[in-house]
């Protein structure tokens, strides 16, 4: 059992937990994730480790309440215990010196890109960060990202904060202006696809962090398989980071919809365990 030490509402429907998990905290590296199972009935949910504190023995996860399982998780409070937490899983990011690196974070994707940005920054890279969200309300960790960036841009779809528009517009402008050695993008799959498309034209190495449907997270089931160039990879053990130029985005987007109908059923049966609610 893993105790929730702290809970912060970062934005509407976006919550942050600090969880007591000393062993995982010792080992967690940027880019890795954990699998959380709230209780006996819960799904195994993969969530990126947004931060970890070896001394306190805690890890930080940030999640958006998009379905039943994340909603259930979001109802947990400080002091509550999560039944299962396993990690750190996946490969760590390759933190290297590249030169000038653009880190693009969209929506809740800012959480996973933060530890990578920080590590890249500490490695001596010049960091240009571009953070985007629907509106001002949904922007998270601006100050933390700013702290580890040499240049910092914010966009919102509605213009309620920073520049109105998409992260890709800023990205294009920067790439036109100066030489960029690497781009790291984490966020909604459409955003990562758009970023990869733009950087591919310019031939700039681009890494994305994929978040496909997962089950065990240890390479056992293949639910998370993604087409990377002419190879099939398991995101849980071969990723989650991949070369954005090689990802088969159509396939990746489609596979996320595998259980779309079931996800709706789970939402409508909310809170009801006494009957087989919502099946028909």
């Amino acid at each position, binding site marked *: 059992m893993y105790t929730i030490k702290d809970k912060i509402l970062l934005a509407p429907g976006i919550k942050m937990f600090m969880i007591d998990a000393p062993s995982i905290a010792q080992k967690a590296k940027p880019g890795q994730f954990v699998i959380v199972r709230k209780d006996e*009935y819960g799904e195994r949910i993969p969530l990126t480790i947004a931060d970890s504190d070896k001394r306190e023995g805690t890890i930080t996860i940030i999640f958006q309440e998009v379905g039943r399982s994340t909603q259930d998780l979001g109802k947990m409070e400080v002091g509550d215990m999560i039944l299962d937490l396993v990690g750190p899983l996946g490969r760590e990011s390759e933190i290297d010196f590249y030169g000038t690196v653009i880190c693009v974070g969209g929506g809740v994707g800012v959480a996973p890109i933060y530890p990578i940005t920080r590590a890249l920054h500490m490695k001596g890279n010049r960091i240009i960060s571009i953070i985007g969200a629907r509106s001002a309300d949904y922007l998270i960790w601006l100050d933390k990202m700013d702290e580890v960036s040499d240049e910092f841009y914010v966009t919102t779809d509605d213009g309620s904060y920073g520049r109105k528009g998409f992260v890709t517009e800023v990205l294009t402008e920067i790439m036109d202006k100066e030489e960029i050695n690497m781009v790291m993008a984490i966020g909604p799959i459409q955003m990562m696809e758009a970023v990869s498309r733009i950087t591919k034209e310019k031939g700039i190495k681009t890494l994305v962090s994929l978040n496909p449907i997962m089950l*065990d997270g240890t390479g056992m089931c293949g639910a998370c398989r993604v087409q990377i160039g002419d190879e099939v990879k398991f995101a849980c053990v071969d990723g989650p980071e991949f070369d954005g130029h090689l990802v088969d985005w159509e*396939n990746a987007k489609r596979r996320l919809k595998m259980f779309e109908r079931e996800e709706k059923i789970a939402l409508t049966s909310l809170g009801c365990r006494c009957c087989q609610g919502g099946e028909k």
Partner: protein
Amino acid sequence: MPREIIKNKYPMPLLPIEKRIKSFHEVALGYTEDLAIKEAERCLQCNKPSCVEGCPVGVDIPAFIKLILERDYLAAAAKIKEKNSLPAVCGRVCPQENQCEKMCVLGKKYEPVAIGRLERFVADYELANGELQYTRKSPTGYRVAVVGSGPAGLTCAAELAKMGHEVTVFEALHIAGGVLVYGIPEFRLPKSIVAKEIENIKALGVKIEVNSVIGKLWTVDELMREKGYHAVFIGTGAGLPYFMDIPGENLNGVYSANEFLTRVNLMKAYDFPNYLTPIRTGKRVAVIGGGNVAMDAARTALRLGVEESYIIYRRTEKEMPARAEEIEHAKEEGVRFIFLSCPVEIKGDNEGRVCEIICQNYELGEPDESGRRRPVPIPGSEYSLKVDTVIMAIGQGPNPLIAATTDQLQVNKKGNIIADEQTGKTSKPGVFAGGDIVSGAATVILAMGAGKKAALSIDKYLRSL
């Protein structure tokens, strides 16, 4: 006083077919006491019992059967447990027809004694009525880490604990049992039985740490260097699913058997949305493969309510690696077998969901290295089958995680850890391995046999330190 020889085994009471396919209730109900005694009476109590030679863990079969005749079922259970830590599991899923029962002298002329069913009867009796007294040797002070809580790891852990060593089992998933809980379905091996067997092993003093992925949380080297374990046993099984590498395999609706079975068994997707992990089958399911895993998947699909559940296998029934009993049950329940056939492509609809599978017919040619006749495709024989789900049950390989993160640990071409068959010794001092991670996908009892042998050699190794 010559006694009449009963030529056939007393049949196993089975759940009626119409009840089976509507639930995950266990199909084989187990012998009653009366049936067990009658069946035990068939045993010839040979002076040189060849059945024991057929048992990978060397259970004293005539002795436990004799104890059944004496109505001392707890003693019978104790007798089995001298050699086998998971009798209720083995009584259900061992391929006895290829092991003990194959060697049974009675079997030369008639049907062999139903050793597996008797083992199960005794083990179930003990789980329901008994509290076994274990004799544990005094603590040795040595600590052993066991990686993986499947049949190999549990057996190794139990044996080492009995010898007085301090044992911790590390399991990656949230429940212990490995393939016994994520792979083999409830209707063949109830999870409550597995849980009870594991409780018994814990009662020996074995600690089980779930949610612990060795190679990620700690490496094998760290377990030995920093965590104070004197030896490590690796029993991580065959957990890496194989796919066919044919077009359309990444469509929605194509599962590995591991994913399909894990969703249903481990995550209880059959009770969705009570349990939140979903499963989706549509109306028509095709399972590719001919082993026990394929049978499990096809029979599971039926229980989830599909209209058609096909098994597509490229050889014939005779070459199928699945147990005869499993094939029989699958047929009874309505699984449809398509032999001498193999998929070449999976096609999807506009939304990228599986809608049909294109297969090619095969014929049998010359025998291959396995001795089975090689399946040869017949050109131009392609045909289409409308299906909503395709489940790949064509085998599993070793998970590379441990090998990739452990210094000096040698693996073969396929990625299996190289270990001595008799001792489980690997290329790395203090590290032992056994079960499917060494042999490639095999059976529960062979993994247990390997775990047991490794325990003996680990004990020897520890005492030499």
